[in-house]
Every structure is written in structure tokens, then in C-alpha cells.
């Protein structure tokens, strides 16, 4: 890695900050606080412990619904990818679920399951699940039949086949599902919290909205984006690099 790989994104971020500062100066309204005010709001919220607490709650919900959606979706996707009849049977369901607006499924979950934690998690999972299923179904369909035959002739057995033949082929699809999933769940979970929970980032943002505290909103947004980038850089990226080392 050269200095350049960092220098350009850094310069670009500084540019964005400069434009923001300029706009804030020009507009001179509480609706658009400048970067310093947002940083102050960030410091205040962090010092009071409110930001870490709310962020933690949202992250916990995110983790649970992410794991549920990924594991369920992977299992279903592989199943539909392997069984043609099942696929034909459930494909219309998938299309419907893919097209139900997130807001509708969130409202329905709260109506049917009550304003509880289970409903919140279910709403996120239902929104994410079809995406994972479709991606993994694609990956399963693309599995290499030649390698499967090789594994069968050399009697790999179930576990060896799964670990050394199937998993490396599905991994890129899992990464895609995980990336898209994270981005999607982030967005949905806030709406879920806003509509039916008494804590979490979504709830807090709603509160700021009612107080017209734009600096607070932007401070929480910054924390949010930073956490996602951290996950990407420390978890997803290294995993991917390690798994792709066999490619030219």
C-alpha cells in the first residue's frame, strides 16, 4: 500500500467537510449546523453515555437479525438452488416478499406480534431474508458439477465436500449477501425502532427530530457510518482477502 491509497480518500473527505462548512456559513441557519457543532454534539452525547448506549442497543438488534437472516436465508437459498420443484413452488412467494415495501412488513409485524422486541427482529429479518435467499440460490445454481463429480469419485464424503468443494464456491455469494445485508438492515432497523421501540438509534433520531436538533442527528449519523466502515475494514475485507488468495 502506498501513501496514495490513503491520501486520495482523505483529501476527498476533507473536501466534503470544506463544502459542508461553506454551505453552513452561507446558509447560517440552525437547520444546517457546521462540522464543529456536530463534533461538539458528538462529544456531548458520547460523554453523557447516551450515544454509546443507544448505538449498542441498535447494534445488538442488528447482530441478532443479521445472523438470523443470513443463516435462514442461506439454508433456504441452497435448498431452492438444489431442488427445482421447490424452487418453482416458492419462487412466486419470493417475488412477493421481495416487493413488499419495508414499511408495510414492519407495520404488519408490530400489528400481529405486538410492539415488542420479537416483532422488531422479525420485521428486519423478513425484509432481509428474500435477498439472501435469492443470492444464495444463484450461488448454488452456479456450483461446479465437474468438481462435484470429482469429489464423488474420490469419495470426499459429506463433510469434506461441504468444506472443500461447496463452501469456497458459495463464499463470494455469502460475502455479497452479507455486504448488501448490512447496508439494508442498517436502514430498516432505524425505521423499526422509530415506529415501535422506546430505545435505540431510530428512537433517538426521532427524538432529535422532534426537538429539531440537527447537530444531534448528524452526530449519530456519523457514529453510525463510522461503525459500518469499521466492520467493513476489520471484518469483511480481511475475510475476503484471505479467502481470495488462490485467485491470480
Amino acid at each position, binding site marked *: 500500500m502506498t501513501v496514495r491509497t490513503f491520501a486520495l480518500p482523505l483529501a476527498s473527505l476533507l473536501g466534503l467537510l470544506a463544502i459542508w462548512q461553506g454551505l453552513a456559513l452561507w446558509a447560517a441557519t440552525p437547520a444546517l449546523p457546521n462540522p464543529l457543532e456536530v463534533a461538539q454534539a458528538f462529544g456531548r452525547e458520547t460523554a453523557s453515555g447516551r450515544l454509546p448506549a443507544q448505538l449498542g442497543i441498535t447494534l445488538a438488534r442488528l447482530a441478532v437479525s443479521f445472523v438470523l437472516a443470513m443463516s435462514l436465508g442461506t439454508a433456504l437459498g441452497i435448498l431452492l438452488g438444489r431442488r427445482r420443484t421447490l424452487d418453482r413452488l416458492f419462487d412466486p412467494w419470493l417475488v412477493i416478499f421481495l416487493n413488499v415495501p419495508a414499511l408495510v412488513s414492519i407495520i404488519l409485524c408490530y400489528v400481529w406480534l405486538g410492539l415488542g422486541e420479537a416483532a422488531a427482529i422479525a420485521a428486519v429479518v423478513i425484509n432481509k431474508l428474500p435477498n439472501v435467499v435469492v443470492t444464495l440460490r444463484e450461488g448454488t445454481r452456479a456450483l461446479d458439477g465437474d468438481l462435484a*463429480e*470429482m469429489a464423488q469419485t474420490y469419495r470426499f464424503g459429506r463433510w469434506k465436500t461441504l468444506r*472443500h468443494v461447496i463452501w469456497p464456491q458459495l463464499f463470494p455469494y455469502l460475502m455479497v449477501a452479507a455486504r448488501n445485508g448490512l447496508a439494508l438492515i442498517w436502514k430498516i432497523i432505524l425505521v423499526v425502532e422509530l415506529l415501535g421501540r422506546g430505545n435505540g438509534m431510530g428512537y433517538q433520531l426521532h427524538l432529535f427530530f422532534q426537538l429539531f436538533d440537527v447537530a444531534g442527528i448528524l452526530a449519530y449519523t456519523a457514529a453510525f457510518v463510522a461503525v459500518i466502515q469499521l466492520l467493513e475494514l476489520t471484518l469483511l475485507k480481511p475475510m475476503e482477502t484471505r479467502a481470495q488468495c488462490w*485467485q491470480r
Partner: protein
Amino acid sequence: MTALSIEIRRKRYPARGPGPERTAIENLSIAAANGEFLCLVGPSGCGKTTLLHLIAGLDADFEGSIDTGTAGPPRIGYVFQEPRLLPWRTVRQNIELALPETGPDRGTLIDSLLRAMDLQDAAHQYPRRLSLGMSRRAALVRAFALEPDLLLMDEPLVSLDAPTARRIRELLVRVWLERPHTVIYVTHDLREAIALADRLVFLKSSPAAVLHQVTVNIPRGRRGEAEIEAFRQHLVEEHPEIRELL
């Protein structure tokens, strides 16, 4: 003593899309003695690969029976037409993964095979970084290292340069002589077949069936270019019907 006995009444491929139903193999019977080296010779597309698939047990959808003559399921080494290595495992891992979990330690055998194939430096490389020839050789090591009861080979030396192909042929015969096992070797190269086989089995195409069988009676130590060519000439003169296969 017949070890391998193949009786295929019919192997059909169902109609798919616009293509009609196709009979790939009909009334084909081949028997091989234990430890015999058979070469199947026939034009490309005549169903040789299909036949190997059936023998390997990869496709059970056919009329007839295949008896490998072993008590349990046989240990089969299959060298496919393409190398079929796992691209995300190194050459050495590919070879080791194909071995049974239990059994003797084959580390030294793998080492010597890799050396014989001139692959010792590539053992820890990923297959994508190898040339096709090297990948083919790695696939051969994988099959040999298993010490199979039955070795199936589907034109394994295609696209290798002549000296390499000859070296691998010699190695193949050496490995086979050291530890006799039944070999079914598919090729469309008659000279190669004569150099390797105990017996040649000529197949006709669509649907595949045995046209003719010839025992190669040149002693193994004396199969030079000249002897092979003489045998080939003689064969083609004696059996004009196989000429069109070649």
C-alpha cells in the same frame, strides 16, 4: 479370473430442449482381468467419456450392470479430461484431499510422484497459477497417490507436448508395473494406445459398442517407435474396419 465386467444394454440421454433422445451406448460388453491395462480407442464423441462415468458410478441411469469384482466399493482413481483440481486448494492439498481418511501414510509416495512429474516446486501453488500441462500432471499424481484398484483415464495426455507425454506414459507404466491394478485408458491416439495397453478395445460411435479387440503382443520392454508403427500398420491392414475410427 475376470475382475471387471461391464455389460451395458443401453444408455440413453433423454431429449433436452430441441435435441431428441439420444442413445449413447448400446449392447456394449467389456471384461478386464485383474490388473489388465485396457485402452479404449474410438473417434471423439463416441461415448467413451459416458462409459467411464458409468464405470465410476457417477451415473446410475442405464440398463445393464457393471461389476468391478471387488468385495466392497472399489477405490477408483479417475483422471478426467480436464484436470478438475480445486482452485482454492494447493496442488498438495488437492492430492491429499482425494486420499481416504484412514489408510497408510502416503506422504513419501506423494513426494516421489511429485518429483517424477516434475512438480516438486509447484506443490504449494494454487492451480490457477499453473499451466494446463502442470495441472494435468497434478491430476495424474492425485489419481496415482490413491493407489487405486481401478484407474480410469480419459485422454489424460491431450495437449501435453510430445516429450512430456512420453515421460508421463513411461511413468504410468512404471507405476502400474510396480503395483498392478486394472486400468481403463481412453484415447483416440492409436500409437499411444499400442505403447500402453495389454489389449486394445476399438469402439464404434453413436451408439457406442465394441467393434473389435486386439491383444498387443509386443513385450513391454520393446515398444519403441518402430515396433509400434509396425504393429499399427499390420493392424490397419488386417482390420480395415477400424481404419475409419482413426
